């Protein structure tokens, strides 16, 4: 698509202004991470920091459990998102290109998982986990996170797979390809963009979850990062801001890593 030069300049301008607004709260955070607790509390939030207290605030981060819980959270978020992507992809393929009766029913059944208010899961799953010995275990957390990521992932994949021509599958089937081969060797390579978006969003969701992480675990070895972060609370805002930035780094890094994939088109589209 061609765009006029004028339109392009206008778009650039609008986007520049808007994106400045979008990241301005981040400036505010950076303005305040160098301050001490009292300087922050007493002075104007909008003044430049007087000294540099960043190192002390970083130290507070190290002594808190935030860093420790990062590795276990990484395990939860990675495994949860990877498992969900794989399981959801199979389901989406089944719901779009295989002979399954009552597809709408099965679709709604999986989709349900996003519809219910999440708080209703707390009591029944807690009870079940306690009975089964999954309470306060890493396996329990990974299972839960994979399950909760499936519905959204399935929904995105399904709607993406709908756009892939059925004839493509038919011709492959005539050539004798198994369904698994079609999924893994035709669909998967075409799905770089949705796979990376779904993976990123579900990883971010697991990483940022507080309520379930807090309820289904109790020991320092199993508790995820947001639990540690929210214990810090508002007691020391500059240190909290440092912790906020540190805890957001993995999701941001992942985003930058996957960014290219979002932009990638797929070549097979028109057979």
């Amino acid at each position, binding site marked *: 698509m061609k765009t006029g030069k004028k339109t392009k300049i206008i778009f650039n301008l609008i986007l520049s202004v808007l994106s400045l607004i979008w990241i301005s709260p981040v400036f505010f955070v950076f303005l305040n991470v160098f301050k001490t*607790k*009292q300087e922050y*509390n*007493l002075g104007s939030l909008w003044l430049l920091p007087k000294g540099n207290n960043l190192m002390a605030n970083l130290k*507070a981060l190290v*002594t*808190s*459990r935030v860093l420790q819980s990062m590795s*276990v959270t990484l*395990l939860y978020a*990675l*495994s949860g998102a*990877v*498992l969900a992507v*794989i399981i959801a992809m199979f389901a989406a393929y089944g719901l779009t290109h295989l002979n399954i009766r009552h597809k709408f029913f099965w679709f709604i059944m999986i989709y349900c998982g996003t519809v219910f208010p999440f*708080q209703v899961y*707390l*009591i029944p799953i*807690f*009870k079940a986990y*306690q009975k089964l010995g999954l*309470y*306060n*275990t*890493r*396996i329990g957390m*990974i299972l839960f996170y994979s399950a909760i990521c499936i519905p959204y992932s399935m929904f995105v994949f399904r709607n993406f797979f709908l756009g892939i021509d059925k004839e493509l599958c038919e011709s492959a089937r005539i050539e004798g390809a198994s369904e698994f081969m079609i999924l*893994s*060797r035709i669909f*998967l*390579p075409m799905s770089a963009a949705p796979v990376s978006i779904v993976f990123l969003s579900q990883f971010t969701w697991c990483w940022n979850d*507080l*309520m379930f992480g*807090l*309820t289904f675990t*109790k*020991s*320092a*070895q*199993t508790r995820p990062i947001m*639990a540690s972060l*929210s*214990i*810090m*609370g*508002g*007691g*020391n805002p500059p240190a909290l801001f440092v912790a906020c930035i540190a805890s957001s780094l993995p999701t941001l890094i992942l985003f930058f890593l996957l960014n290219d994939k979002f932009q990638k088109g797929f070549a097979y589209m028109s057979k």
Partner: protein
Amino acid sequence: MRRKLLALFLGTALLFGTMAGCGSAGKDGAGEGEVLGAKTGAVEFWNDKLNNTDQEAIDELMGSISSLSGVDVSCVAYPDTASYQTALQQSVTTADAPGLFTWWSGPQLMTLAGSGNLEDLTDIWDEYVVPNGVADSVKESLSLDGKVYAVPYSIIYNMIIYNKNVFADNGLEVPTTFDELLAVCEVLKSKGITPIALKNDGWAGFIWFQAMLAAYDPALYQGVCDGSIAYTDEKVVNVMHIWQDMIEKGYFSEPMQISDMDKSLANGTVAMMLEPNYECKTLTGDYGMEPEVDMSVFVVPPMNGGKSIIFFEIAPLCVAKGSDDKEAAKEVLKSWYTKDNQTVFTNVTGFLCTSQVVSENATANEMVRLTQDDSKYELMLRYYENTDDSIRDVALDELMKFETRAAGADDILPVIQQKADEVFGN
């Protein structure tokens, strides 16, 4: 492509491997505690109270009680109410229940005690709690059918904390009658200073309501709480109109966050706030107010003479009856109120529970000193736990409407009374 797929599956397999490994690692972690516990006992202390506390301070607190009691106490903090309620309520009936945990007083404590899941702590109360300087008078709010089911994690007193410099600069003295308080407000208002800060929190509507009722007549407050006096009673209406008048004259700020209240008090744009004693620690530590130099306290003075009322609240600390760690937990409680442990506890949390310990904060000490002067002051349980909770929930919403100027006294009192009629069956 197949190679990629293979990598994916290998990755997944690896992941499951790690999971299995981690599962056992997690169990090993828990096991370590048990090994320690085999010799000396171990107990978990679940709470939702140690949020906003540095990890170092929590470790110090756990270290203190562990070494004093010989039981390894570990802290499990819950910074989210739903998580805490779920984890505790659903495990309290099982052997996995925590030995020690904090809860909320009033109906929530009574529900738990009534369900038979709490250990009777009457013996500990008599032998280890009261002798260590905890006021025996608070026992009533922790008891059911004559048995004590909890000990106080914290006892909190509410008083007016004021900025001494603002008072001095404007030639103001601490008021001893309600009229003097009004005069102080008028002077401050005319100087462009907001006299009193109101708190913006869902539950905070009752703070000045109870203070006004009790300043008018303590018996009126008790009567309203137990249902013998209606919210639409002439006296209550009268009190509410005095309060409304003060709000209309600009003596109260609009409701604000606690951090803004602290900041405003420290920078002198607000002169007074009716807050609990632990706030003194925050005001000194985080907002630089020197105790008894920059700030001090007084009790809301009475309108018609007589004693002033100081309101208190208690956070209960309980032992789960079914817990495997029950005995260890009771052992911990024997050392909980010792002077050594309470000294650390007070420094970390700002709470003062026993008369053996003084706070590092002179204003906090002043507050405790006032509570002990029973010639002038009388302690009463605050409104939140002192009345039926379904009336309370309605009243809190209505009082917040009143404080935000969205409704007047004559609008809200009949609404609260309607609920009270339902509950008390008039």
